[in-house]
């Protein structure tokens, strides 16, 4: 039986760049290549893994403008508009999050990536027009410095060692 925690811990750092990466992961977690492949396939089917592939750093590829656009949307409308915003190619993320009144009135968050500010703002205008949200309060938080960007670490290696 494969240990899913160990597999996730191995996967979150990325696949090794060797001819047989799944076999290499299997070696690290005391499993077999076939078990690793089968288990990843299962996690993909169940939706635990959203995608398997190359993860890029958009800033390094010239996509230097990135805005988090936050909206204050009536609770009964948020599902509809969250889905409407999510349809656009340039919207990489559309999430509902809690308000924190009085400091934070916004409950819907979209991430827009673009090659410059105008690119992002033009796309934002397109969203506003298409989803008919001209009357809704929003705020655009462009990113400035990036202090850290890497894949999520759900399982820290210390806790793996402790439980091993």
């Amino acid at each position: 039986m494969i240990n899913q925690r160990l597999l996730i811990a191995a996967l979150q750092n990325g696949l090794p760049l060797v001819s047989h990466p799944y076999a290499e992961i299997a070696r690290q977690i005391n499993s077999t290549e076939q078990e690793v492949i089968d288990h990843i396939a299962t996690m993909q089917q169940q939706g635990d893994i959203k995608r398997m592939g190359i993860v890029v750093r958009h800033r390094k590829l010239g996509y230097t403008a990135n805005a988090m656009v936050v909206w204050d949307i009536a609770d009964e409308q948020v599902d509809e508009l969250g889905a409407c915003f999510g349809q656009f190619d340039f919207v990489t993320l559309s999430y509902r999050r809690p308000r924190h009144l009085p400091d934070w009135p916004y409950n819907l968050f979209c991430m827009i990536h673009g090659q410059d500010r105008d690119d992002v703002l033009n796309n934002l205008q397109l969203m506003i027009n298409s989803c008919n949200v001209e009357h809704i309060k929003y705020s655009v938080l462009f990113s400035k410095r990036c202090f850290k960007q890497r894949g999520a670490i759900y399982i820290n290696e210390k806790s793996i060692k402790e439980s091993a």
Partner: protein
Amino acid sequence: MAIEPANLHEKEPHMGQHVEIERIQKMLNQFQHNLPLSSTPYADMARQLGMPEQQLLTLLEELKSSQVISRIGAVFKPNRIGVSTLAAMAVPQHRLIDIANIISAYPAVNHNYEREHHFNLWFVVTAENKQQLNRTLKDMEQKTGIVILSLPMEKDYHIDLGFPLQLIDGGTKNNKGEH
């Protein structure tokens, strides 16, 4: 504005640069999703791209070391195998770098950005469970003396960062939607 050659190459730009960037663009767009789940995924990718496996591995290695690629692997769905939250702090400008460094030092933090707002530091904190997440947030507040606004995802309408990339100079504005 498109890709800066310096981002992909240490060398001076040369005539073959366009071909090289086109090849990289093709590779990235083809394999941001659907990495082969076979015994030899890189050999399979290389075959589809028409290059030897070793050449692909070297290219991926280079793109990793120049930080264009963060990794090759799995993107997990949020809150399925662990928990996470988007955290924000309103940091006085003169303390921003120090505070950002304290936050980045946590292995539980994967994204940490300065943004244009009164809440000017935004980061994602992950953990195996809620208790551990709360402990980390509390620890951060104690270490920095700054209150955290924690905004965990309640509903996911869409997430996919693997959007089609357009890297060739002058391409984005004019060619959008052609591919």
